[in-house]
């Protein structure tokens, strides 16, 4: 039985956010398997304390029917000619737009640290904040998946990945229609004319739920050669890991 359309503001406790040190250190160009100084460890600990003190995580998720997402995805007509998501979303069982933020206060704190010449701590806190925002997005993704699981909509062959404007050929201007549908201002996230979100540490996009195989693509699109990270490889591998 199809559920009614889900839209939920997801309450998130700081204690629910499980940051991965490896990801924070990667952002700071520190390989986890390399020895680093005690000072770096201290910086990380201090940054984590500031993260707990200053972040105000919030999330919003709203299911969207495929035909309506098609309109959102087309956006301002500036996407690359062919993108992975072109085919992926059409094969999905469920789609949900989402937005998350860890709030403005943490960004302000980062700025203050730089003004006080506390560059190392400001930079580490920025890295912690970026990782924290991704983890909040994970929580919202899991929340949506739990809601579907209650109605037995999730099976062992289900794969869930999120995709965001600005990546993989989906133009940044895609934020505009996404915001018109989702209304992330309900959680304090607004969109500037340059398609930049405020607070800065915010993420928006679409959660795609379907058979795992729909997410499998090769990074041979025209724009892939410009990509500096190819994160898609790890994301897809993770999905198929036993």
């Amino acid at each position, binding site marked *: 039985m199809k559920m009614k359309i889900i839209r939920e503001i997801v309450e998130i406790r700081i204690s629910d956010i499980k940051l991965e040190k490896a990801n924070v250190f990667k952002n700071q160009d520190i390989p986890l398997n390399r020895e680093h100084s005690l000072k770096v460890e201290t910086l990380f600990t201090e940054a984590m304390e500031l993260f707990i003190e200053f972040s105000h995580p919030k999330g919003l998720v709203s299911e969207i029917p495929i035909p309506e997402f098609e309109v959102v995805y087309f956006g301002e007509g500036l996407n690359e000619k062919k993108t992975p998501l072109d085919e992926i979303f059409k094969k999905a069982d469920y789609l949900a737009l989402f937005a998350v933020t860890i709030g403005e206060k943490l960004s302000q704190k980062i700025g203050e640290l730089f003004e006080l010449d506390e560059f190392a701590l400001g930079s580490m806190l*920025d890295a912690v904040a970026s990782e924290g925002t991704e983890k909040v997005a994970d929580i919202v993704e899991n929340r949506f998946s739990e809601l579907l699981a209650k109605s037995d909509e999730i099976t062992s062959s289900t794969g869930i990945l999120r995709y965001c404007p600005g990546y993989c050929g989906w133009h940044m201007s895609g934020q505009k229609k996404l915001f018109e549908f989702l209304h992330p201002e309900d959680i304090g996230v607004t969109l500037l004319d340059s398609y930049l979100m405020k607070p800065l540490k915010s993420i928006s996009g679409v959660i795609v739920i379907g058979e795992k195989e729909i997410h499998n693509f090769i990074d041979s699109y025209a724009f892939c050669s410009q990509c500096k990270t190819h994160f898609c490889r790890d994301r897809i591998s993770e999905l198929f890991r036993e």
Partner: protein
Amino acid sequence: MDILNKISEHLQLGDDEKVRIFTKEAIKAKISPKEILNDGLIFGMDIIGKKYKAHEIFLPDVLLAAKAMYAGMDLLRPMFIKEGIPTIGKVVIGTVQGDLHDIGKNLVGIMLKGAGFEVIDLGNDVSPSEFIEIAKKEDVSVIGMSALLTTTMPFMKIVIDLLKEEGLIGQIKTIIGGAPVTEEFAREIGADAFGYDSINAIEKVKGLTGMT
């Protein structure tokens, strides 16, 4: 000279307090501010830069050293101003119009100051005309632009086009950087250099100003 070695060593350790103490000692010992800067502080930062490139140390270590550098420079700055000693070059930096990301730009600014440049940081959301106006007013050698959104990158080209219109190409050099920015893009828009990270940006600026 022992005091200058101590300044350099403690800078490399990121100990801003010790750098401050030994810089004061050096001043008291009548060592010239230029010598303290070049053979103590910049000498230490150069070693930091080499160690970072060799992957012996990482970004946090570099930034701790930069803070220590600033501690020393804060004591020297009034002396430089009093004696009319110029910096090795003047650079204006900013995040382009429509973009509020500034961490990368801030890191470049920190490292440029650490290398002895005078840096005029215009902040973020800087219009093309503001870059040009300040660059001309301050008689800078280089304009450094950062963008983290593909939608704001075009403003970098506008700045370069304005330099062409004003006949300032070659006189004022440009360097660009930021996550979506590439070497190819830099070539396409006529930028003089592309910095893939803050340390690389400093090397490129030194090259643009003939300091290498």
